[in-house]
């Protein structure tokens, strides 16, 4: 027990003094992730919000052929401006990117309207350009509603109710809650947390195994009158301490970052108060032991610091796989998923953010299976230190 405690304290102090470890454990994972997330979300929210309010200027060729349409567009927050001279010049302008969208009203437009045959207009846009396509969609919507208004007027003029054009009226009832909608966006946060948690312990896992061997400090350590299994347990425990701190920090920094995200404007209310923060920590905590022992095990087999880094970056990505598969297939939480580490934590976390009732059975399975796998890996690590091959 004393060996365990001594190693634990020494590794913690040693690594606190190492700037690289500290930076990756306490800054990279916990702060970088949520900040990046907040930044991206903010940017996309701002864009989608001001798109509707922002006046859109659209060059129109042949404005004089459709004065009513021009007025209609202006009333829909679309400013009609003078465009290129002719159709060919218009296509060139869009291809080159001088304009995003150009509307062409041919000369016969008025006549076709008067004859009640479909009047042709042309909308030039680059559909591969997402930003331009958003503008084109606004023009398209405005044109469609103008067209529907005209159709209604024509029917009324002929004594027919415009209702005949709407045989079915679809009324959608959305049962999603504001916190449920936020889960769509915040679901991927669980990977940020798992990533931060692993980052927190990565350099310790390397330093205490491959690093120690590379430095030449492993051999004298093994020559000491201590039980070698306890050395390993102390090292894994130190890694766990760093991971736990890293996880706590990343949860807190996400909590703060959420305050700066205008999610309410999207009709989302994330359920992420202090109580959920604590619950999220508890749900993710079992993964700490698993991550620490897995990284230590992988690093134990490598010969050098660099080699360990390469292999551990694969370990960092591995927990995404089950999350990714389930997200793509949009599977709902099931009992058997709870046996899979990282996936079970992800699903439980999404449930928390959605403010769904906690399924005690699911939590119990997730905690025990993750802890069991972590325990088994820890045991393998402790056994490994008895092998002489460890010294390479």
């Amino acid at each position, binding site marked *: 027990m004393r060996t365990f405690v001594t190693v634990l304290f020494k590794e913690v102090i*040693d690594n606190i003094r190492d700037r690289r470890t500290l930076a990756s454990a306490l800054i990279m994972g916990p702060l970088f992730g949520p900040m990046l997330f907040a930044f991206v979300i903010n940017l996309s929210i701002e864009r989608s919000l001001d798109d509707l309010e922002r006046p859109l200027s659209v060059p129109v060729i042949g404005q004089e052929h459709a004065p009513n349409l021009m007025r209609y567009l202006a009333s829909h927050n679309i400013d009609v401006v003078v465009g290129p001279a002719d159709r060919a010049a218009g296509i060139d302008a869009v291809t080159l990117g001088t304009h995003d969208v150009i509307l062409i009203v041919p000369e016969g437009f008025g006549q076709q309207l008067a004859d009640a045959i479909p009047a042709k207009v042309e909308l030039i846009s680059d559909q591969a350009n997402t930003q331009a396509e958003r503008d084109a969609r606004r023009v398209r919507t405005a044109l469609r509603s103008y067209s529907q208004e005209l159709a209604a007027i024509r029917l009324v003029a002929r004594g027919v109710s415009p209702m005949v054009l709407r045989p079915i009226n679809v009324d959608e009832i959305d049962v999603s809650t504001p916190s449920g909608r936020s889960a769509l966006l915040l679901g991927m946060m669980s990977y940020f947390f798992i990533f931060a948690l692993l980052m927190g312990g990565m350099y310790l896992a390397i330093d205490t195994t491959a690093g120690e061997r590379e430095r030449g*400090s492993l051999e004298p350590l093994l020559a000491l*009158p201590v039980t070698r299994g306890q050395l390993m347990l102390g090292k894994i425990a130190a890694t766990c301490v760093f991971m736990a701190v890293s996880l706590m920090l990343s949860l807190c920094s996400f909590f703060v970052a959420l305050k700066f995200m205008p999610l309410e404007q999207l009709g989302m209310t994330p359920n992420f108060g202090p109580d959920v923060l604590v619950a999220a920590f508890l749900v993710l905590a079992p993964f700490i032991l698993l991550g620490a022992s897995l990284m230590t095990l992988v690093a134990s087999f490598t010969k050098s610091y660099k080699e360990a880094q390469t292999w551990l970056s694969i370990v960092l990505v591995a927990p995404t796989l089950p999350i990714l598969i389930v997200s793509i297939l949009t599977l709902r939480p099931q009992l058997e998923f709870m046996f899979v580490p990282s996936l079970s934590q992800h699903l439980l976390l999404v449930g928390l953010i959605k403010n769904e009732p906690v399924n005690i059975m699911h939590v119990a399975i997730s905690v025990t299976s993750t802890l069991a796998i972590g325990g088994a890996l820890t045991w393998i690590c402790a056994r490994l230190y008895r092998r002489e091959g460890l010294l390479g």
Partner: protein
Amino acid sequence: MITVNDIYKSFGKVHAVRGVSFDAPDGKITGLLGPNGAGKSTTLRVLYTVLKPDQGSASIDGADVVTNGLIARQGIGALPHGAGLYPHLTARENIAYYANLCGLEKATQEERVEGIIELLEIRDFADRRSKGFSHGQRTKVSLARALVHNPQNVILDEPSNGLDVMATRSLRDLILKLKDAGRCILFSSHVMQEVAALCDDIVIIANGKVAIDDSADGIRRRTACDDLEDAFVRAIEMVEPE
């Protein structure tokens, strides 16, 4: 007291040690001498229980290094070849870490750490982080932490490698002090003069076998060479290669 009884050790196809036996008694300095790759380090690594012998046995004060590793390790202070320190810890912390791991009580521990810092003249740099230490300083601290629990048997793998004259001299003084205190000292080297100047008993190893095990005078006599270097070369030639 260290006893080595006919040990063998191979790494894949390389037969590093092929039947080495010798005794290193208390109160004496035993030198393990041999060219590079002769099997010196492998023999010592078996003794401080980092490697397991394929055959044969070895014991530290009667405790077998394989079956009773923990007890055997309690009796040794080992300085492996190229031993490294923890760069973010000070010299004192490096030593205290080992003292703590060896299970010394808090009061004795501080006393021992202070004592060993004094003995090895570490005081000047004791509270500096070991990151920028010179090779000599590193060796001193590595030696200090190996000796902090006051072991009866001291195993040093090429301790004087890369040390300057002053550092080598203080190392030699230390080894003699340990001898006077009745310890068993076993160290390896590939420098004949160094071994001859210090050792009571010299074990020459070549190609994983013991070529000769005697005092410096005995070696001169048995190889019929007055010059020790010639005697060393002659002894090595007596061992047939694999």
